[in-house]
């Protein structure tokens, strides 16, 4: 089995850019949640953990921005921080993403134009609704397009995959990235998650699902780690942040307590696990994160310089 180490980390959250910003607000016990001017359906939540980022400097072409979902924007910024100047066309990529809100508002105009006598008229949808259906909607909402945009921006053509599954998806992606390297399927991989729950539809769905509410605000963020073999990291003279010594996912396991993180930056859906993992990398430890239906991803690691 190939030994796998972490040689890069990048994160963006309501705390700011980089994982140090998360650590700072955590240790200072400071919240980054803010009420917005919009009452957002008067949901029973304490505020929103909104990121302030500019994705344009990270893009190959400025016009690419119009194709990006919010999660894709956050993912590209976090990936840029994790990769730095590194470009490796054979690098693998695994991304955990959350759910698309049950109504993002993109098709609302088309549906409303298709109303007749208080009910939906499918015939009208095909005629009047067609022009009102935004052509870019499918390109912003397919789950794998966060991955696709990151791959395109950074030229990554190796093995790739998208995991969906709420809070566990991001960490499950790092688990999958660990396997890709440890099994020799790729030399290096960028793995993590990105999600945004700060739109009205996601916030309302999250409350309905019991994932958001008092003490658990909607947030957004992204975090990625670069994983590679210990041998390649040493050969390239890279700084080793930690060695992954175990990983897995299963249907039942204990739920870790991420309350401290969520209280500061909000619940970031599929990005929560990677953010917590990235923040904790400098300490030896073990992290478990559960998703709603009990699927769990876990990682164990040893921090710092690797002892051979």
């Amino acid at each position, binding site marked *: 089995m190939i030994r796998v180490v972490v040689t890069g980390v990048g994160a963006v959250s309501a705390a700011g850019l980089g994982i140090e910003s998360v650590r700072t607000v955590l240790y200072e016990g400071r919240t980054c949640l803010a009420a917005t001017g919009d009452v957002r359906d008067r949901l029973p939540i304490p505020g929103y953990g909104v990121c302030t980022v500019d994705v344009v400097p990270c893009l190959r072409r400025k016009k690419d921005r119009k*194709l990006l979902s919010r999660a894709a924007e956050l993912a590209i910024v976090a990936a840029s921080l994790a990769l730095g100047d590194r470009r490796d*066309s054979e690098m693998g990529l695994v991304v955990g*993403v959350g*759910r*698309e809100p*049950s*109504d993002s508002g993109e098709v*609302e105009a*088309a*549906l409303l134009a298709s*109303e007749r006598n208080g*009910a*939906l008229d*499918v*015939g*009208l*949808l*095909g*005629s009047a609704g*067609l022009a009102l*259906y*935004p*052509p870019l*909607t*499918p390109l912003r909402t*397919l*789950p*794998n*397009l966060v*991955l*696709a945009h990151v*791959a*395109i921006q*950074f030229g*990554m*053509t*190796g*093995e*790739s*995959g*998208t995991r*969906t*599954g*709420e809070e566990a998806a991001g960490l*499950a992606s790092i688990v*999958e990235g660990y*396997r890709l390297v440890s099994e020799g399927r790729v030399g290096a991989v960028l793995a993590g998650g990105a999600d945004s729950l700060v739109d009205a539809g996601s916030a*309302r*769905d999250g409350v*309905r*699902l019991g994932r958001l509410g008092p003490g658990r605000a909607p947030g957004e963020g992204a975090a990625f780690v670069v994983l590679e073999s210990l041998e390649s990291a040493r050969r390239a003279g890279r700084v080793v942040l930690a060695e992954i010594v175990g990983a*897995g*996912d*299963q*249907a039942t396991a204990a739920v870790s307590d991420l309350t401290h993180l969520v209280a500061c930056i909000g619940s970031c859906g599929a990005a929560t696990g990677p953010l917590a993992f990235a923040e904790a990398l400098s300490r030896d430890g073990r992290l478990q994160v559960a*998703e*709603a*239906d*009990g*699927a769990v991803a876990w990682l164990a690691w040893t921090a710092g310089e690797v002892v051979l």
Partner: protein
Amino acid sequence: MSAVVLGEAMWTALGRTEDTWRRLLRRETGIRRIRRFDASTFPVTFGAEIGDVGLDGPALYYYLLDAVCDEAFGTLDFGAVPAERIGVFFGSEAVRPDLGELARRWQSREAPRLEELERHHPAGPAVAVAKRLGAKGPVVTLSIACTSSAQAVGEALWAIRRGEVDVAVAGGVDVLVHPLMVLGFSRLGALSVRNDEPDRASRPFDRDRDGFVLGDGAGVVVLASPKVAGRLGRSLGKITGYASSCNAWRITDTPPDGRGTRTAMEEALRDAGCSPSRLAYINAHGTSTQQNDASEAAGMRAALGDLAMKVPVSSTKSLMGHTVAACGVIEALLALRTVRDGIAPPTANLEQVDPECALFHVVEPLTVDKGVALSNAAGFGGSNTTIVVEAP
């Protein structure tokens, strides 16, 4: 190490597993005018729908899932395997909503019900199958557009290889003949608009192809480690190799040289420890869009070299449409059936091969060796996946 196929099932516009296979070999099409809803005002009025079920929306989605699980699981004794050693791997996009319900909520401003939110989630199928089996191993949902269920099969193979599970259920389900899907893909210009001749609309690799045809489908395969397989049932074949790649090119376009297809095919063959000279058949992704087919053919020629004009290739989408999240597993099973029975289904409507798509195309049912086959899948966003299968 390979994984042994113990159970398999599919449901397409051509019917259940045996009907799909029989009708493919007869070149009967499942593509027709849409009956599920009044599509007369839509830019595209036909599709490959699973009709006569009397259901729509999520209810149809889960009905198909249950049906293919019933058939694939058959008499397999899952109770003989510890729950922790059973994993579930499903390819899934979001479950398509019930449109009437969606519209009603827009008007009333009513929030979706909890059950609705849970059933619509991409992870819904994997969770449902895990609950049905009482599986406590990994429950994994992969959402990579049209490669979703192919990757699910591949990740199930790897879970068995690494000894994480003894039995893995992999599959995919999708219902594409849906008003919002027709609207969305029409706006992207991805669909064939041959409204006057639906049965001739899906024509992969043909010079006059003009887009793909949306289809409904579900497929599931039960895999087991060689050690455990012998105790559970009869081998229907093996999954021996898997690889994926990313084009990193453009969101909807594919690179003309087919580099992503080439990488996935070469790596999958390497993973299987299989020489291209052993290939008896390839089930192509073959969507019938201008770009996909030319790019995929270029990638296949690059991967196979001199063998490119000798290995039989067909696209079964020509008769059963494009089932997106379900096509990977369905077509991998069709590839396996091909080399198990020694007969390859044809690509329908391939009347004049586009010179850019030159390959050894199967246009009539063709006798092939009982051996090894590939199944390709590719998706929006640039993902490519290849599965290697082998007859028992």
